[in-house]
């Protein structure tokens, strides 16, 4: 593997990006899961596709856009979508989960229209849907490095507020925590991470890396902090194993990563069951 990596730049890029999102997606995923917003990742990834489709559509007439990375437009849409979603959550305060299907339908609806207009139903679309190793460019590496730096700093500084709000938003409010602003900040972070994970994981599988490792981590972790450690561990194993096998088997990396994340989850679940049975004896 190492020799091949020297040979191909794209492999180095793919592994770099993979390792970064193998960290970011599960860390953000912990908050997403405990806030009971597991569907939010899917809504944001679909709105990312809408942005990409919009870019492809515009690029037909505005040729200068052909040199620009479509992911920027995707990221812009995801951030805008996350802000709208946060607004909707405040409007439908008794039905907060409504915000997700609203954004999801807008995302897919507009996305399909722009893709049709841009004649985008081709191989590129396949890469966006399921992820790709060869498509990872040096531009992706820069973009994701910047996103990672920003998100890690924000998470570090707002960890205690996010933790408190995830557990009990009402109580956080009376403890003078700026709940609304931190919620908005979190949505924007989620949008940035989801849009950056898209390259490797694909739109349809983005949520697998932020949900499955967390689901497994929650089975074994004894504290909130430990949940992050395990989630990142499971996330990185899935990404590295997924990328290597995807490369040799020549399949879409998103699928392999999701499969490894699932295998880890099953191992943890059965290990826990075995442990229980053993203790009962």
């Amino acid at each position, binding site marked *: 593997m190492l020799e091949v990596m020297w040979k191909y730049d794209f492999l180095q890029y793919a592994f770099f990006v993979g390792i970064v999102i193998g960290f970011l997606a599960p860390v953000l995923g912990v908050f997403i899961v405990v806030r009971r917003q597991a569907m939010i990742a899917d809504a944001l990834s679909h709105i990312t596709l809408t942005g990409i489709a919009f870019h492809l559509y515009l690029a037909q007439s505005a040729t200068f856009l052909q040199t620009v990375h479509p992911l920027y437009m995707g990221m812009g849409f995801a951030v805008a979508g996350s802000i709208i979603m946060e607004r909707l959550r405040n409007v439908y305060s008794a039905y907060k989960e409504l915000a997700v299907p609203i954004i999801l339908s807008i995302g897919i609806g507009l996305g399909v229209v722009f893709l049709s207009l841009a004649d985008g139903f081709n191989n590129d679309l396949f890469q966006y849907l399921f992820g790709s190793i060869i498509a990872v460019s040096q531009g992706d590496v820069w973009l994701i490095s910047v996103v990672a730096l920003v998100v890690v700093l924000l998470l570090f500084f707002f960890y205690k507020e996010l933790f408190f709000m995830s557990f*009990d938003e009402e*109580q956080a409010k*009376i*403890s003078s925590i700026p709940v609304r602003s931190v919620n908005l900040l979190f949505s924007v972070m989620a949008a940035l991470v989801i849009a950056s994970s898209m390259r490797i994981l694909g739109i349809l599988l983005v949520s697998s890396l932020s949900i499955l490792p967390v689901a497994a981590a929650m089975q074994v972790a004894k504290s909130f902090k430990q949940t992050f450690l395990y989630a990142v561990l499971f996330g990185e194993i899935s990404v590295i194993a997924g990328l290597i096998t995807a490369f040799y088997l020549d399949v879409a990396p998103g699928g392999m990563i999701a499969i490894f994340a699932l295998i880890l989850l099953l191992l943890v679940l059965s290990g826990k069951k075995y442990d229980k049975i053993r203790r009962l004896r």
Partner: protein
Amino acid sequence: MSTQENGVIQIENVSFRYGTQNVLEKVNLTIEQGSFLGLAGPNGSGKSTLIKIILGFETPDMGRVTLFHVPVSKFKNWEKIGYVSQKANSFNTGFPATVYEVVSMGLYGKIGLFRFLNKKHKKKIDETLQLVGMREFKHRSIGELSGGQQQRVFIARALVSEPEVLILDEPTVGVDTQSVQQFYHLMSHLNREKKITLLLVTHDIGAMTKYVTHVACLNKRLHFHGSSHDFEESELSSLYGHDVTMITHEHDHGGA
């Protein structure tokens, strides 16, 4: 009757409605520093609503509320007020957090943005867990505790920032009799030794009157407010209907 200067919470002529339904009508209530007030009333009588107004979650349609002589809307020193909500025990029990982590939340507002827990805070968390008798459970998952134990953890979270006032909304629901006793002993201790002003919402008038210094009975309007001694000598059956009889206490208050 009450000296206004000592009123840490003052509710003046407060009315509130949800839509067209009157929930509170012209409620006047002063909670004095150092007192332990039991607020009783049947289901739907507006107790939780009154608490929400005190905490600024709802704004009254009429009247005003001051905390430490500052109108609620302008009040900033929220760390002076601890609150254990009626819903505290209905958190997501699968939440992966330890008792220690949950109690530490109580300090976050006081610490402020861009700052972190230090040694002193950690010591304070240990002391508070000790106070509520949950220190040996420090590293246990919050979801794995019994209802009564969880409740003590939430009380610790409200206490850890050293509030001057503690507000508890029906904390003894679903807690066994022995734990209720322990709970009231803890409250008495906080009130007498730590000089914390307490506002306790409850259905259970019988268990409460032995420990509180003052009683208020609410049913849209305030039907009674006075010392617990006066309360025992008044009749309140009208508020509760005829099927609920007051539980009388074994100890004697020195004749009528």
